[in-house]
């Protein structure tokens, strides 16, 4: 059957068809939908959200030790978190087939950087497979498992946003079961004490050379004949852009691009006066060519390293033309905290109290936008707490009264817990605010260790933030209703006035998950409204000014009494549901 699948859906389908038994991940755009789709095959595949990518990786590696085909998926920056197990797992491969999916984000549609994770394959000395559409995702995943099992190595499988999220036709197949290998204790390669690791390194180098020889003739690397005068080398989604930019050219398309098949590439380059090397972000392929002394290539010197490519940019950068056309200047339409978002009360209060925050990765990062402007720093998952503590150590305890750490529940579970222990251990006075909407919201509502439900839909234990804080040594820890403006304000004031470290858990469900609780829209009594503008400072998309500068509420957006923050901050009580006003 021929169906349209996104690259992420095709990974999930590939897990099913190629006999994967265990799949793990921590959600992160653009990779999230992989596990969300794997769970559709939960009768055949055990799958789970882990607290972070490092743990997800270690669980997957353990499953590989256990002798089954296993997959771990993450966004590009997630592999930084999992880099520790990655770097050593490469020498212990050799049990059940093990594939690591990295979904990179050129253009930074939803990320803090556009690192090119192809370098991780080279760094960790493992093969790199790069599909270029959903059918290839499905097919190449099977080859990736074969490579993993044949050579005894984990395989890095790289997607990018336009592969993960573009839907392209896929021919579906059947599931093929793969026999589980029996676990036999063998410390020579699963215990990496230096004496073992020295031998393993030699083994890895030999393995790499064997895989390079395989890559020279692998069907994943293929030449498509076209114009004998124009040669192009490319891989992944860049290949698709290059095909559109140079429809007549002869192509060397690399699907197994590391270990780099240098002889194949050398022979290809010898046929042309100049070969275009088309790559998004980093000149990964080009570096291998140049290192081998191949100089008749044109790549990074023309093709930009910042941002996404497309066929127009590829064509223009080679030809030197600019065919982008004229843009009309239009006001930006930035994403904002949703109407009814429980995070709004914290940022509004911080703004009113002139308190800044070190913040973190999630929806709440939108609290940086005007009028809330409640964020001073946001770097990576979990950084908020350490950043706050460090600023306190540099500037002093008084400063800490004006700087809190703000982190979402899922991010706190991911990598905030260790920061909290650090605050207690090193006698910080940090106020840590966990914005607890009891879900991983930004990526589209995934469960985590603090929600009480697993990916496979089973009820489970629920992390208790208060008990956790108490156990690391933070006695001042309490829950606050995020929709009670006065309570939020009192709690933040008390916590920041104190010299002791405090944990505040601001509780309120994600508005997008609470549709059944939305009430009828509020209206503004414009007779009573004094145009003071306080409600506008909430930055709610439902509230704007009318022609007289008074507040007005868009009934299509307002969620009414579910939220009511505007009614609570109004000093003249002019906002209410219609029948009460």
């Amino acid at each position, binding site marked *: 059957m*021929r*169906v*349209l699948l996104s690259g992420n859906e095709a990974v999930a389908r590939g897990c099913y068809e190629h006999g994967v038994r265990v799949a793990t991940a921590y959600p992160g*755009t*653009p990779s*999230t*939908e992989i596990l969300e789709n794997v769970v559709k095959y939960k009768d055949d595949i055990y799958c789970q959200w882990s607290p972070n990518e490092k743990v997800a990786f270690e669980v997957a590696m353990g499953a590989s030790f256990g002798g089954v085909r296993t997959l771990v998926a993450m966004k590009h920056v997630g592999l930084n978190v999992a880099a520790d197990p990655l770097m050593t797992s490469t020498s212990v491969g050799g049990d059940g087939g093990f594939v690591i999916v990295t979904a990179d984000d050129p253009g930074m*549609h*939803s990320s803090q950087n556009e690192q090119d994770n192809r370098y991780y394959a080279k760094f960790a000395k493992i093969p790199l497979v790069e599909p270029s*559409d959903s059918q290839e995702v499905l097919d190449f995943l099977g080859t990736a498992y074969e490579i993993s099992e044949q050579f005894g190595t984990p395989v890095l499988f790289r997607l990018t*946003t*336009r592969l993960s*999220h*573009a*839907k*392209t*036709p896929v021919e579906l197949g059947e599931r093929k079961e793969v026999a589980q290998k029996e676990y036999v204790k063998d410390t020579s390669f699963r215990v990496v004490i230096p004496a073992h690791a020295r031998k393993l390194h030699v083994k890895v180098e030999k393995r790499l050379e064997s895989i390079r020889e395989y890559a020279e003739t692998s069907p994943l690397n293929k030449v498509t004949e076209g114009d004998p005068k124009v040669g192009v080398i490319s891989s992944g*989604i860049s290949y*698709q*852009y290059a*095909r*559109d930019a140079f429809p007549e050219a002869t192509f060397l398309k690399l699907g197994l691009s590391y270990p780099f098949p240098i002889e194949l590439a050398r022979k290809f380059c010898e046929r042309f006066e100049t070969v275009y090397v088309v790559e998004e972000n980093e000149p990964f392929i080009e570096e291998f060519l140049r290192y081998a002394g191949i100089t008749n290539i044109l790549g990074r010197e023309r093709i930009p390293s910042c941002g996404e490519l*497309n*066929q*127009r*940019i590829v064509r223009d950068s080679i030809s030197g033309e600019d*065919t*982008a*056309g*004229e*843009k*009309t200047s*239009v*006001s*930006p*339409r*930035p*994403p*904002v*905290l*949703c109407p009814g978002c429980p995070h709004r009360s914290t940022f509004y209060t911080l703004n009113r109290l002139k308190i800044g925050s070190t913040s973190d990765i999630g*929806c709440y990062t*939108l609290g940086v*936008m*005007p009028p809330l402007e409640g964020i001073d720093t946001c770097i990576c998952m979990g950084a908020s707490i350490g950043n706050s503590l460090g600023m306190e150590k540099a500037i002093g305890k008084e400063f800490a009264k004006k700087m809190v750490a703000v982190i979402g529940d899922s991010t706190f579970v991911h990598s905030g817990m260790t920061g909290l222990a650090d605050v207690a251990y090193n006698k910080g006075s940090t106020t840590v605010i966990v914005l607890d909407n009891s879900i991983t919201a*930004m*990526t*589209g509502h995934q469960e985590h260790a603090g929600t009480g439900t697993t990916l496979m839909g089973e009820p489970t234990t629920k992390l208790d933030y208060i008990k956790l804080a108490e156990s690391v040594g933070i006695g001042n820890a309490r829950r606050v209703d995020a929709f009670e403006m006065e309570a939020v304000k009192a709690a933040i004031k008390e916590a920041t006035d104190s010299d002791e470290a405090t944990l505040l858990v601001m509780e309120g469900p994600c508005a*997008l998950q609470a549709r059944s609780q939305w009430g009828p829209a509020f209206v503004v009594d414009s007779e009573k409204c004094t145009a003071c503008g306080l409600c506008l400072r909430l*930055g709610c*998309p439902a509230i*704007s*000014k009318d022609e007289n500068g008074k507040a007005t509420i868009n009934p*299509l957006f307002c969620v009414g009494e579910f939220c009511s923050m505007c009614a609570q901050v109004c000093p003249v009580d002019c906002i209410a549901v219609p029948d009460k006003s």
Partner: protein
Amino acid sequence: MANKTTDVFICGVGGQGILLASEILSDVALAKGLDIKKSEVHGMAQRGGSVVSHVRYGEAIYSPVITEGQADILASFEKMEALRWIQFVKPGGKVIVNSQEILPSGMETYPPTIDRKIRERVPDAMFVDALTLAKEAGHLRAVNIVMLGAFSNFLKFTEDEWKAAIEARVPKKTIEINLEAFELGRAAVSG
């Protein structure tokens, strides 16, 4: 033309049902046995940001995205968004705009010159009051299917093919409203 590709660029504001409309278009093309690629970016769609979906179909499709000056059809579910992306339509391409105005967060009033600026760029741009037609069909949220009906006039699929795809995609109890929305949209502009 033998290897003709059709490029449809759909844009609007998060929450307007852009992705469903492009899903239905993709289903119609897939059912005809064509090669098809559809691309959009997830993550911010529900948070009121600008949303874009690229649909490309034909004999053999490579890139999943449409670039500037390439779209045969630019369908915008919101006026300001049409202007934001107007450089993506090719010379002679069709521009179909829902005349609905959605104020971006942080802006106090909607700029009054959008229609004029669209017409300056594309004189024969077509405006459809999709919100009113959706209301007429039975639900405000059917704006996306009204727009689908409007731009379907410029694509070579039959009315039955469109309707079958709509029926297969929308929730059962909304089929009637959506088919009505499609017909109202299809009648609102002439192909």
